[in-house]
């Protein structure tokens, strides 16, 4: 059996998902792969069930908002961990904010349930097929998604901490 390296994992992914693998990078020794958002469940199922890779543990999932990335503003980030090879991988799926839908991971991992609700709560990502998609830590009446970048943390009229004062 070949030694499982990041390059090997990437090759395997490219072999199986072809053009759906959009880009990849390795940062701080963790492989990070961006894929087509429609394939998220397939990709994670493949990584979990492959007899060599065995990414059996969904460590974490969350979203990141990039307002300048027009058409792909929201990014779903999944961290997988293999207890067999002790490798971790980061998977990214970009979705448009105008239609923030992605398939739910609860079909594979119960752990995704609340994490997806949290992501919905803060970013408004709709997880299609989720059994109970409602807000989890914020009040039900809230009508916006507070972790999106357009909601500034402090008073918008305050500029004493603006970047320009620090030479940026």
């Amino acid at each position, binding site marked *: 059996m070949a030694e499982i390296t990041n390059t090997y994992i990437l090759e395997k992914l490219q072999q199986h998902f072809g053009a759906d693998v959009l880009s990849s990078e390795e940062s701080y020794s963790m492989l990070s792969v961006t894929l087509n958002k429609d394939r998220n469940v397939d990709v994670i199922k493949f990584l979990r069930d492959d007899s060599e890779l065995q990414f059996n543990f969904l460590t974490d999932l969350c979203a990141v908002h990039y307002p300048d990335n027009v058409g792909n503003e929201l990014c779903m980030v999944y961290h997988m961990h293999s207890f067999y090879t002790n490798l971790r991988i980061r998977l990214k799926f970009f979705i448009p904010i105008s239609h923030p839908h992605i398939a739910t991971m609860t079909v594979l991992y119960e752990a995704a349930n609340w994490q997806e609700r949290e992501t919905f709560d803060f970013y408004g990502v709709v997880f299609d097929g989720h059994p109970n998609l409602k807000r989890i830590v914020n009040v039900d009446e809230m009508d916006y998604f507070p972790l999106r970048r357009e909601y500034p943390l402090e008073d918008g009229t305050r500029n004493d901490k603006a970047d320009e004062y*620090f030479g940026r």
Partner: protein
Amino acid sequence: MQDPITPELLKDYTTLNLGPTHPATHGIFQNVLKLDGEVIVDTEQTVGYIHRAFEKIAERRPFYQVTTLTDRMNYCSSPINNIGWHMTVEKLIQVEIPKRAQYIRVIIMELARIADHIICNAVIGVDTGALTGFTYMFQWREKIYDIYEQICGARLTTNIGRIGGMERDLNETAIRLINEFLRDFPKVFGQFRSLLERNRIFMDRVIGTGPISAERALNYGFTGPNLRAAGVDYDVRVMNPYSSYQDFDFNIPIGTSGDTYDRFMVRNEEMVESMKIIRQALDNLPEGRHFADVPEFYLPPKEDVYTKMEALIWHFKIVMGEQDVPIGEVYHSVEGGNGELGYYLVSDGGRAAYRLHFRRPCFIYYQAYPEMIKGSMLSDAILTMSSMNVIAGELDG
């Protein structure tokens, strides 16, 4: 299992609010239990009562100010949260800190683990009706806080250490207190263990209570003592050693059935292992400095700030958050008191994190609670909850 309850009987269910402020929940979270007599049919959980939006706040604060946010997540073992955060930033800025600082961190993190487990296990005793063990053990948590106080000046929300090392070296009092703790705690701990571990009443109460299989635990994203109690030997300290954990000789205790008794026993054994680690770290404490040479991130000693121009400049730049950071994404995790505590940091080179996500272990594994208590008695649900070590601050983030 066939559900023996037909729909006509549904109207006879009792709804019971366990929480939000109930002494047995040990924190602010609510469970709406649907009961058939005393048997739990269904549970609906509500969390978020003390949500403070740390992830949003962290997007506005320089890195060194995020440490105080991490304190308030798992406040039973805040030094682990603090040091985990420092290590995340150190990974981003790629700085290797001296061995001495790493060993001091290990000592502090293991003390924090003992404090965390003392709380959890002593409270399992209380919830079974054995208050005695609690009164013995809680004194020793105070003694651990005395050690924190010598190291960083604070007791509960510690803000311990700095990015790039420790704020000060271990002083003589701290070393004396640690030695005294290692000498005297095992005696009391032994009394606590002999009070409960083979106690027939306690065993009847906790064996088979709130079990979860290894397979389900993994599916639910369990980590830490709860996962190990189910029989999976996953420990971040061994799988991805950080802060020189590879230098120490220690065992990872595991259980078999994932019930309350196994969780209790795993924590007890972990405390023994933690004491072993502290002893080794203290005996082999390397010489050297307690901080790395990263003036752009490590706050200079206060006396230098008052007397040296350069230190004053660095102090100002750090405090005002004027320091550039590398662009990149980093995930770092540590073995917290109750599981894998992860930090996913996205940096765009600005003063604050572009995005910071905390992988909060108990937020993830607490989802399994309804499944674990379904079909059991109300009093077992209380025990299952206290043995899961759910900390409200971490749960809500």
